[in-house]
């Protein structure tokens, strides 16, 4: 049982490392790209680690980890969205293929 947990933990750490590499890769040169990494890889790395930890801990103790995981899932994407919004408002837009927010084009539903 605990071996599963350990593997999950290492997996989580690996995901975290990938997120880290993404942050430092020089050719990942837009802030949006880095935000995608932080917004997706990071929470997942923690979720995986947390899942791994649950295998080790007593059920009741694991509750804390679960709560933290839920809290993160709820909060992190919200935060990242706000950062996206801020980035766009800061006119960080030159490299976009298409920018319908700035141009005002709207697709019909």
């Amino acid at each position, binding site marked *: 049982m605990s071996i599963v947990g350990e593997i999950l933990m290492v997996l989580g750490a690996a995901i*975290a490392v990938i997120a880290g590499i993404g942050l430092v890769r020089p050719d990942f040169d837009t802030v949006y790209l*880095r935000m995608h990494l932080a917004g997706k890889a990071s929470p997942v790395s923690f979720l995986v*680690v947390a899942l791994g930890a649950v295998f080790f801990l007593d059920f009741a103790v694991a509750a804390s980890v679960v709560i933290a995981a839920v809290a993160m899932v709820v909060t992190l994407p919200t935060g990242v969205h*706000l*950062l996206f919004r*801020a980035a766009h408002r*800061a006119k960080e837009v030159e490299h976009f293929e298409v920018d319908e927010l700035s141009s005002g084009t709207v697709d019909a539903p």
Partner: protein
Amino acid sequence: MTTIAIVGLLIAGLCGVYRLLRGPSLIDRVVALDVALISLMGAITIDAADRNDPTNLVMLVVLAIVGFTATVVAARFMETDAPVEEAA
């Protein structure tokens, strides 16, 4: 195994610190801080599991709240104020 995991998280955290230092934009730094914080959370979790000691676990929830707060404030701040890109 857990040591390897912690080392991995440490590397991720250091990458975060690197981006934190280099910027160039405030958003980059905030994102980097989030990554670093999450690495810390992971490390705490692994350590707690390893020693089966729940003492530090309460910090996880607190860290989640903390990270969120920092992000929200930074984002909100940027909206009320300056452009993001800073000459590096």
